[in-house]
């Protein structure tokens, strides 16, 4: 029982972290109907920027305060992500207005390669570390109740809280500012949105920028957990079933999807895995998502797919 709870908890935490990456996908999809393949690369890029600035800032300024250095690095990395968003809009999206989703998907692939190249050129390709003072050692709770207690990772809890906060913030942003409606309009029909005066350029810069900041936060948390290195980009692949299960257009969907996938994959690996040789969690996550899709083809919270004649 204790172990079950521990696994469950571990799954929930992992799910929150996936959700953080998934959120980036959702944002951009919502705003342009584009599946942003570059989200993983953006996470890596942002994390690299943050990690290196945290190294460089003390070197440049002679400051020796870790908190100040981290805050400055975060801000600088945020600024870098803004520049990325702006360039992406200026050089790519603007020129591909009203093109098919496949074309835009491909363009984001080009962006992926480009970001990977630039990121590693500027920031290097070794392992870097982000040290934002996350506690690493475990705490054991309920050791009177269950044998061995339940292990809780403080780092994960903090990360999950940050993720939840970010989601709440974004949900609020889209609900309150009315930008949300414009975003959905843009995703539905670029041309019609233009025709009524929605400035696609500005919208896209904003959204890519927000997605960049989300990527930064995701990169920071994942980076602090794993170290910043090329493989960070692959967490996108783990986040994919999450986005799709939650629904490509739903911010809360990313969270719920994340939790379901996180729990599902951990439980399956721990309980079914040993029977079949282990290593099943990835495909299990996808199969789980597929199972849900067979019931709801648009994901749990996604907008209904419209087909009408």
């Amino acid at each position: 029982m204790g172990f079950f709870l521990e696994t469950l908890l571990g799954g929930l935490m992992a799910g929150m972290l996936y959700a953080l990456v998934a959120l980036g996908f959702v944002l951009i999809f919502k705003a342009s109907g584009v599946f942003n393949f570059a989200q993983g690369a953006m996470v890596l890029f942002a994390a690299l920027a943050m990690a290196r600035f945290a190294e460089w800032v003390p070197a440049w300024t002679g400051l020796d305060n870790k908190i100040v250095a981290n805050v400055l690095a975060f801000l600088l990395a945020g600024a870098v992500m803004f520049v990325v968003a702006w360039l992406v809009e200026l050089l790519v999206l603007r020129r591909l207005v009203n093109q098919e989703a496949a074309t835009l998907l491909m363009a984001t692939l080009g962006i992926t390669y480009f970001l990977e190249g630039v990121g590693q050129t500027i920031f290097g390709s070794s392992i870097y570390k982000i040290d934002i003072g996350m506690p690493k050692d475990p705490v054991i709770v309920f050791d009177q109740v269950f044998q061995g207690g339940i292990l809780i990772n403080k780092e994960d809890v903090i990360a999950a809280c940050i993720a939840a906060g970010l989601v709440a913030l974004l949900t609020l942003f889209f609900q309150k500012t009315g930008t949300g409606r414009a975003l959905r309009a843009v995703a539905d029909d670029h041309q019609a949105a233009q025709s009524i005066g929605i400035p696609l350029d500005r919208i896209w810069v904003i959204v890519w920028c927000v997605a960049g900041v989300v990527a930064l936060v995701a990169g920071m948390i994942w980076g602090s957990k794993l170290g910043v290195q090329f493989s960070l980009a692959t967490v996108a692949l783990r986040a994919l079933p999450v986005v799709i299960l939650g629904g490509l257009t739903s911010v809360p969907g990313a969270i719920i999807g994340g939790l379901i996938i996180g729990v599902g994959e951990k439980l399956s690996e721990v309980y079914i895995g040993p029977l079949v040789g282990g290593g099943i969690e990835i495909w299990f996550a996808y199969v789980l998502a597929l199972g849900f899709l067979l019931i709801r083809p648009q994901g749990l919270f996604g907008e209904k797919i419209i087909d009408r004649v």
Partner: protein
Amino acid sequence: QAKEQFIPVLSYRTGPYAPNGTPWANGYIDYMKLVNARGGINGVKLAWEECETGYDTARSVECYERLKGKGASFVQPLSTGATFAITEKAPVDKIPVVTIGYGRSESADGTVFKWNFPIAGTYWVASDAILQAIAKKEGGGMDKLKGKKIALVYHDSPFGKEPIPLMQERARMHGYDLQLLPVAHPGVEQKSTWLQIRQARPDYVVLWGWGIMNTTAIKEAQATGYPREKMYGVWWAGAEPDVKDVADGAKGYNAVTMQHGAEPQSKVVKDILAMVHEKGQGTGPKDEVGQVLYMRGAMSAMLGIEGIRAAQERFGKGKVMTGEQVRWGLENLNLTQPKLDALGFAGVMRPISTSCADHMGAAWARIHTWDGKQWKFTSDWLQADDQVIKPLVKSTAAKYAAEKKLEPRTPADCQS
């Protein structure tokens, strides 16, 4: 035109395994620069070209094809996947495949694998050494393993699966319990693995990882409170990039070494610093010279180059050797202690001598342990048990030969 011996370099300085591939390549190239600075191999200078593989098999094959056309003397694929693919091509191209500390373990059998040279150690050696070290820690011989629980956390790929047959064999022999826990490439998500470890509480964890998987594993061990002292990594999971970031969190973590460890004090390192880096020709950052993977690169280069030197002894000193000649050299390598000392590898490694039947030449290893700042040796020399490994190599190689309908090499062939 000056005589030059061409050596292709397949390396990866980008992609998921770049942090580990880069220091290896730096050591490899610096050593070749050193050889040239020392005057080449009996006057024959080395030339090389680096090709970026990104640890991708298809890309590696392309690199191999490209560079082999330039007169390759031997090739180091530097990835298990690529080794498998290139092994099939080598006999046709007549280029020896040198795999120092990786590749397929059964290729130590030179009567079947004529062109493969896993010199100085295979994964079976590594895993055997680890088991011996664990037994020692338990206070004695292999019988101390009885009733223990050992978990193998491995990279889910041929690389990670290599040690399994040996560890299973040993489990049968000594009666320990082996738990297999695969981790999917690239290994950034290991939560469930470590939850399982927390539940099963194995006495030891053997870590068979590469790249970020190692760091992640150690971090997860820390997060789940698994004692690092009870973890033993393969030699690809025992270098600075694996533990640097975890620093204190990795304190006590052990790894088997392929003879060498971090050797900043060795003569070869001093030579490289003096003759290459001082001249401004160093390949990587100076402070990484002598670190574990750097040394692995340097040693890998050295073994190949010594193969060329050995070939020259027979086919003509000061001449450029063909792949076939180098193959002979690699097969008749006899690196005695004085020779190693002269090369600057005193204390770094032990003598090695290969033969037609034995392409590995030595089965020595040590254990080193991370003390929070650097790797320190914590064991004596360990030798993998021939009694265990030989039959395994024989039978696996025989199976390969049967599948391929290969005739084992005749003694006559061995002489040529």
